[in-house]
């Protein structure tokens, strides 16, 4: 269930469009913010809230890569490996992260701290290679920088 505050936000979002269905993407973002990922229950809840068939919501959630279909770690590390990043060492970075975190691409560490994802172009080619952790971009990344960053994030006990 959405918080009171988020329910108000849903009403605000609906006003921006002539149909309730158009609010679906923004409302799913809101849901991901509150619940961390989009479970079947969340999809059913959003469908009911907007008066849409569950099948429609399911179709949309599974079409867009940024909606998490399973729980992700506290830090979702997204590594771009597209051309400009690849030319500047993205695959070496990805290899390093898999070893350092002891997980494969697509997996989450058992303590639910890190999820590692390989992603397509992040639109940061001039500062390649780039990774995104949650909402933030980290540009011109190399292995020493990654090592420092992961150690810093690992120390965070929260």
């Amino acid at each position, binding site marked *: 269930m959405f918080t009171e505050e988020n329910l108000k936000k849903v009403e605000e979002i609906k006003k921006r469009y*002539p*149909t309730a269905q158009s609010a679906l993407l923004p409302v799913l973002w809101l849901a991901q913010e509150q619940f961390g990922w989009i479970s079947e229950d969340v999809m059913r809840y959003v469908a009911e809230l907007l008066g849409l068939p569950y099948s429609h919501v399911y179709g949309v959630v599974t079409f867009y890569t940024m909606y998490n279909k399973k729980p992700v770690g506290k830090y979702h590390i997204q590594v771009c490996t597209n051309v400009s990043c690849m030319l500047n060492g993205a695959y070496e970075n990805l290899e390093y992260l898999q070893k350092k975190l002891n997980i494969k691409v697509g997996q989450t560490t058992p303590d639910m701290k890190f999820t590692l994802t390989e992603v*397509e172009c992040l639109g*940061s*080619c001039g500062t390649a290679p780039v990774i995104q952790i949650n909402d933030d971009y980290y540009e011109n990344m190399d292995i020493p920088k990654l090592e420092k960053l992961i150690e810093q994030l690992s120390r965070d006990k929260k």
Partner: protein
Amino acid sequence: MEEIKLILRDIPDLHRIEVYEANGGYSALKKALGMSPDEVIEEVKKSGLRGRGGAAFPTGLKWSFMPKDSRPKYLVVNADEGEPGTFKDRQVIEKNPHQLIEGALIAAYAIGAQTIYVYIRGEYVKWMRILQNAIDEAYSRGYIGKNILGSNFSVDIYIHRGAGAYICGEESALMESIEGKRGYPRVKPPFPAQYGLWGYPTTINNVETLANVPVIIDKGGDWYAKIGAPKHPGTILFGVSGHVNKPGIYELPTGILLTDLIYKYAGGVRNNKKIKAVIPGGSSTPALRGDQIEGVTMDFDGLRNAGSMIGTGGVIVMDEDTDMVKVLWRIAKFYWHESCGQCTPCREGTGWMFKILDRIVKGGGRPEDLDLLVSVANNIEGNTICALGDAAAWPIKFGVQRFREDFEKYIKFKSTVLVEK
């Protein structure tokens, strides 16, 4: 060549509304509101401005397709920047968001739109915040909202966040996405000006395109038309990445030499290496060999004549040691991942191309694979609802032709180590 900056102007803190206003900001909106919508469209037509999102379609002409009836109308700002090698729109939003907003307002006035949606890629959280902040500032000063600057013109601007789908940069998929659906491109015709968002007339323009509009209204279409290449005038925010010393965005007049862009502005190739290949306008534009770039100008005709396309102006430079088979493998993987799955030739063909390239990269390539790749590409091209099919086919088809020796070495020696030796 004369240096001229129309968008990424060298003014500190230009993203703040008071700085933008102090430098002539929002005066073009005032001027436009004193003209008739048709006069505004005429001025943009005169400027020769062409879309900066990849297709280079004449902007004024696109606006003129909008019907003049009383139905609701919409303007969509396409900020779904996703073409590999492209990172310019986020610069516009970061450095000069008000010029984008002002351009969008002028466009909305010209086409009679009452609502503007900015469709921004889901990853650009930072730039979404910057833009929302600028929109709030503009609302508070009466540039957006009801009866703008005392006129009869009223418009609202909303940001709509994407969620990770390259295809939503395609204008009809983008509209489906705003309508809360999967991003499946629509069959055209009808075009968006006839049947757009929720069936109403809609115009979709790229961020950089709209950021040019205030300059055109301010200085006149004739003035703008004199900048750069005559058939494709203005400046372009060229993004240079890959193996160059100074990657980044360079705003330069169209018609500049590709070699000047690389050597004079982007600092040349790292470690003074030779150029193996250049992708001139984002990953869907076919790569040129290093020996094909001499004398090539960066404009629509210049690149077409050279055997590629201007695309988004995202230039990726690759040095002599680059493994071109691996590069094309990566490009094929991208389009396979991003194909929406609606049309069989694209859904299946992109997968086929990737799997064949994957086999070659892993040492299992067969001599007949090269012709097979070209054949699959030819069967995708022109057989799909939207341009993603073509965008996936071209780089592979021309890549096999232009870098055939590399492929043959891969297949012959069954190992990546032996390539280039």
